């Protein structure tokens, strides 16, 4: 038989918090002082000792034009004119040409020749008609 004196209860033990690392003491400075320090850091360049002998002048390689200069400079690609001409031809051939609304300036050579044939027939009809009307002058 177990008595109450013999029962031991345990409680979860929380781990002890880690000791906070020691922080460096915070130095409070004004903004002007901070700017002065930053300016001083920029101006203080590490001075290397000039113990090394003077080297021979190194040939400076010209880096060439910048990207912006290259961007602004017109570039001529060899064969681009011919390619553009081919593209214009393809566009002109594949473009829809409605018979009634296409401007005469946009006609292809075949269409212009057909139009010329139509006008020739019209002119021949007109001349024939005029010859019949003025036959009595002969």
């Amino acid at each position, binding site marked *: 038989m177990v008595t109450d004196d013999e029962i031991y209860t345990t409680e979860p033990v929380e781990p002890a918090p880690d000791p906070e690392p020691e922080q460096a003491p915070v130095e409070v400075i004004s903004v002007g002082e901070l700017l002065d320090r930053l300016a001083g850091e920029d101006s203080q360049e590490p001075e290397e000792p000039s113990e090394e002998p003077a080297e021979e002048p190194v040939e400076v390689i010209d880096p060439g034009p910048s990207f912006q200069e290259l961007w602004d400079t017109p570039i001529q690609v060899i064969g681009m004119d011919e390619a553009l001409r081919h593209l214009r031809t393809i566009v002109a051939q594949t473009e829809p040409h409605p018979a009634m609304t296409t401007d*005469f300036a946009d006609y292809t050579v075949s269409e212009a020749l057909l139009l010329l044939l139509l006008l020739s027939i019209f002119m021949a009809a007109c001349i024939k008609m*005029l010859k019949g009307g003025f036959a009595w002058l002969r």
Partner: protein
Amino acid sequence: MAAVVAEFFGIIGVDILPPSNLAELIPYLLTVLVGVALVSGVFRVIGRLVELLMDFRRW
């Protein structure tokens, strides 16, 4: 001569501006054809009348 032709085309109703596409060209040509036919017909009648007069004088 050009003024006379222009006046004639103005009378029969042909526009001064040339047609720019086929939809404008067809009525343009039809108008010109009608005008030419009218002129031809009128002068044909005149010629026939003149011929009749000449034949009448012969009688």
